[in-house]
Each structure stands twice: as structure tokens, then as C-alpha cells.
């Protein structure tokens, strides 16, 4: 009797346990039907097709200059010019491969105090056919300006290049060096303002940008060649980076201009001149297009070739500028930095 009761009790216990577990499982299964995890959000802004950029065509080659006569091109490094030899390599290569001489002028040999730096530059120019100035950090003296002017008048070719002048302070991280004078020892880029204004050209302040159509960055803007002069031949689309606009006088010819761009200092949109020519002088408000990484982008190669050809296609009178063109300078005495003329 007691044994039967025990068996009955165990059977009831088993049934109760089974019912409880089954009902729990069934409830869980039913509840799990309600979604507790949502699907991942759809972000159409992340569609790969619209995000990935198209690189600018980088298949150009800077052709060698084709001139019968060998010329000498002097590139100024004596005014703290913030441009390295490497940064101009494609143009230098184009000149050298055609047999032209390229010299980097880094200052006069005469170290005596009071010696005129302009006379050493001018004597260097006497044996040169073209003169290139890029981003000078220090001023050109009146004597040097006179010398370059008479050099150009005599048929010598002059190329002025400049980037925007950086602001003195860069967000509190700049370091003041009171002893750094204007001897050209710093590599901060400046603009050859005094030199350019003699030819009716001024470099602008601020950089050009284009928020809409650009070479994958707002500061890399497109410029197009203007007219059918020798400098703009084959130049449909230039890529210039951190470029500054040029203001030119009436007798200057626009070589390249950037349409639909804005100037950082005014935020005004418009068409800005980035390259111009006045007689034997050409000016470009950018140096980046000369660098090995940029010279093969879009039509930059054609523009670099055109500029190289421009430099060596002048017919300069031998001996200009004459020695006394720099002697009339009014107190423009500078201490020339040590250095000499070196081949590349």
C-alpha cells in the first residue's frame, strides 16, 4: 500500500516537472518570435560607388626641350628661396636632356662687408640666358631688380613662381626666432613682389579653392590654358595646388586661369589668373605643378615642357645686364650668404 503511494507520488512529480518545463519552453519559443534585434540601418551615404574618388589622370610625360642652341638657365637659391632642387626636377631634366645648362645660384663668393650682392647676381646673369625665381624669403635689392629688368630687356627669359605667403602664426604652434633675419636662412616661402611689380604683375594673398569641381581636394584646383600662345599650347587642364592668383597690368597676357574658384582671403568666387606672360617674363602663382608627383598629372606635363622651352628660346644680347646696372642701387647693401654657383 505504502509502496503504491510512493510510486503514485513520483509519477505525479514527473508529470508536473514535465509540464512546467514544456510550458516554459513553449512560452520562450513563442516570445522569441518577437524581434529583439533590429536589422542594420541602411546608410545610403556610405554607398561605395559615390564615396570612392577618381584619381586625376597621371600618365603625362614631360618632354625634353627641342632647341638647337645650348642655353644656360640660372635658378635662384640665394634669397632663401623655399623651393628645393627636387621640387623642380622634371623641368630641370627636360632642360638638361636637351643639352642646356642649369645652374643653381646660391649667392656670391665675395664675403667682404659692404660688397653688393646685386653685382654678383648680375654678373651671374651676364652669362645666363634665363633666370628662375621661386618663393624668395628675402627681398631683392633695387640693384638686383634693375639687373633682372635689363636682363629681360636684353632678351633674357625670366620665370617668377610663388605660392601664397603663409600666415605668421599657425595655431599657436609656431616658434618665434627673433634672430632669424632676412638673410635668406629660413625656408619660409615669400613672393618676389618687388621684382614682379616692375613687370606689372602682383601675386595675390591667400590660396585658390574649389569646393565643387576639384582634383580630390578643395585646394587642388583645375586651371585651363588661355589663348594660343606658346606657353598655353596643349594645356587644356592644369592641376595646381595651393595656388595664388595673379593681378596683371594691361600689357600682360593671361596664360592660364582657374574658373569657378574662390580665393581664401576674400571668399569671392570668380575666374582667377594663375599664369601670365609679359614679354620675356612669365609668372605662375604655384610651384607644386613642377614637382615630380604633380608634373605628370593632367596636362601639367605640357605646361612644364612649355615653360622649359620658353626659358631657352630667348635671344639674349651677350653681356647683359652690364656691370653698372647694379651699382646705382640706393643703399641696398646686403650681406650675401656663403655659397657658389653649382651645377645640379
Amino acid at each position: 500500500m505504502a509502496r503504491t503511494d510512493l510510486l503514485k507520488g513520483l509519477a505525479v512529480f514527473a508529470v508536473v516537472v514535465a509540464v512546467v518545463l514544456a510550458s516554459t519552453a513553449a512560452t520562450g519559443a513563442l516570445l522569441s518570435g518577437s524581434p529583439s534585434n533590429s536589422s542594420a540601418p541602411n546608410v545610403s551615404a556610405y554607398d561605395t560607388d559615390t564615396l570612392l574618388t577618381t584619381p586625376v589622370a597621371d600618365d603625362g610625360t614631360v618632354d625634353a626641350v627641342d632647341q638647337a642652341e645650348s642655353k644656360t638657365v640660372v635658378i635662384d637659391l640665394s634669397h632663401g628661396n623655399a623651393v628645393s632642387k627636387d621640387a623642380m626636377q622634371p623641368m630641370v631634366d627636360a632642360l638638361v636632356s636637351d643639352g642646356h645648362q642649369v645652374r643653381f645660384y646660391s649667392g656670391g663668393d665675395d664675403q667682404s662687408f659692404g660688397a653688393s650682392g646685386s653685382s654678383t647676381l648680375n654678373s651671374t646673369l651676364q652669362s645666363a640666358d634665363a633666370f628662375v625665381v621661386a618663393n624668395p624669403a628675402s627681398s631683392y635689392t633695387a640693384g638686383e631688380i634693375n639687373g633682372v629688368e635689363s636682363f629681360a630687356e636684353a632678351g633674357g627669359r625670366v620665370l617668377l613662381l610663388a605660392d601664397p605667403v603663409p600666415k605668421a602664426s599657425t595655431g599657436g604652434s609656431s616658434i618665434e626666432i627673433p634672430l632669424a633675419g632676412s638673410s635668406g636662412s629660413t625656408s619660409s616661402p615669400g613672393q618676389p613682389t618687388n621684382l614682379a611689380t616692375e613687370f606689372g604683375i602682383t601675386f595675390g594673398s591667400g590660396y585658390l579653392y574649389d569646393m565643387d569641381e576639384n582634383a580630390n581636394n578643395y585646394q587642388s584646383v583645375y586651371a585651363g590654358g588661355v589663348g594660343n600662345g606658346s606657353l598655353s599650347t596643349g594645356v587644356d587642364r592644369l592641376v595646381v595646388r595651393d595656388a595664388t592668383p595673379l593681378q596683371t597690368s594691361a600689357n600682360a597676357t593671361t596664360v592660364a586661369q582657374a574658373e569657378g574658384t574662390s580665393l581664401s582671403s576674400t571668399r569671392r568666387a570668380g575666374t582667377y589668373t594663375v599664369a601670365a606672360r609679359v614679354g620675356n617674363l612669365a609668372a605662375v602663382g604655384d610651384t607644386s605643378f613642377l614637382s615630380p608627383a604633380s608634373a605628370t598629372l593632367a596636362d601639367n606635363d605640357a605646361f612644364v615642357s612649355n615653360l622649359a622651352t620658353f626659358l631657352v628660346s630667348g635671344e639674349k644680347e651677350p653681356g647683359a645686364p652690364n656691370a653698372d646696372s647694379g651699382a646705382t642701387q640706393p643703399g641696398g647693401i646686403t650681406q650675401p650668404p656663403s655659397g657658389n654657383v653649382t651645377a645640379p
Partner: protein
Amino acid sequence: MKPESRGLLDRLGGPVIVFGVVGLVVGAALVPYAWNTTRGPDGTVAVIEVHGTINGDTATAAIDAMREARQNESIEAVVLDVNSRGGTASASEQLYLAVKETKQEMPVVASVTGLAASGGYYTSAPADAIYVAPANAIGSIGVRATVPPQDTPDNQITSGPDKYSTATESEARQRVETLRRAFVGAVYEERSDELELSREELSHGKVYSGSEGVELGLADEVGGIDAAIDDAAGRAGLSDYETTRVESPSPSTLSQIGLNASESDGPTVESVRYFMIHGQLNVGGSADRTEVTRNGTN
């Protein structure tokens, strides 16, 4: 006497009293539940902080809190308490996606309690409403990157030209442009109905005051965090609610001075790094280009 008293108890219904006492005890035990059912809050609004520079740690904390909010049935709405100038690009994108996913399930309202710039604004953009105060700063939509190092150091051997630098400068610029498109596109997608700015204008990266932000459609309302919490509760249909706050992790001393090796985006490896950040960029190393400049108009 005994038989009489027993009879009295029987007459009064002894079992009834016993059951009555037991019922009182059980009922008293259930009083809090009954009280809460009638008088307690309808649900909880989770206030999730996005404070400080957005990096792997702060983003993970906020993303985990949002996942918890989605899984916890008592949480009916989320308020983002945003006071951040942004941080790394990847962490900012992760936060954006987490907010977007949370918004699919419950109301999300952002309250700018100081600054919602760059990645901080990216985080706020998908919210149902963005509350600002006039002195708040919002915007700075854009991307910054360090310049790739030029050459592999002499004391290292690498298997390829980009192993150390990770990319050429031109490629890094393209990637910045790609991240900008994603950022601007996402903001445009979230707020296209309200925005008075074009994509180009957004891309300038300006910082606006709270008042300007409302005017331009970058934010919705001028109001404090309590207004934002009320709004979120109202959107969730809660007339009576409680709030719970999830704080951002405070930065460790090590990471503040840039020595936290566990921080994935920390300055332990020299390479290109991408940020959605406003203000001073302190990345250390040679990539932090401190330049000596002066005016050189000659």
C-alpha cells in the same frame, strides 16, 4: 473552560482567521508591485553621455550603452548628452551607425551640452531632434589627416614602399575626400529636410553657434537637457518616466599624455591617421608638423 474556548474559536471560524492573516501577509508583500503598477513610471529614458574626445574607449562605452538600451525593455527612449569636439574618424562613424540603429527602435534625442563639433556632430546627426543652447558650438563637418611620412627610417626594414607610410600624400588626400563625402552625405541624408546649407557649404567645416545652427537646420530646438529628456519621453509615449545616466569613461592619465598602448588609435605607430575633430590636433611624432613661419612678402 477549555472546551468552551475551543468551541468559541470554532464558532468564529478558526480557519477563516488563519487564511485571513495569511492573505494579509501575502497582500502586504505584493503592495509595492500593485503600487508601482498604478503609480510607478511608465518607462525609463536613458541619458547616454558622449563626452570628451571620441576614441575607441569612449565610443565603445556609448555604443554598448545604446545596445543595452535597445535590449532592456524598460528603456523606452534615449537622450544623447553630447559635449565632444570629435575624435578619430573610425570611432565617429561607429557612433553614427549605433545612433542610427537605436533610432530604428526608440526615440533618440540629442542634447548638446557644450560642443558638438565634427565627430561629435556626426554622432548627433541621426537623432530625432537636436537641442542646443545659443552659446553651444556645433558643426565643423569635415576630415583631417596627418601627412604621410616621406621615407622609411634607416633603422627599419619594410617589405614595401607603403608599408611604413601607408599611402602617398595624394592617396591620403583621396581618402580624406572619401571620408568627407561619407560624412557630408550622412549629415545630408539625416537632415536634408531641415538643412539650409548646400553640400559645398557644409564641407567648409565651419563651426556655428547654437542659434545659427537652429537657423541653418543643423539643430532643431533651443533648450536644455531637461527639455530634450521631456521630448524623448513624449516621443516614446511616456507621461511618467525615470531617467538613468550612462557616463562616458574618464580618460586615463596614461592616455591623456599619449602613452596608452591599448588605445588603438594612439600615437604608438607612425602612420597616417584620420580624424573628425575640431580644434588642436595633438598627434605627437614627426607627423605633427610644427613649422617656423614668418611673413615673407618680398
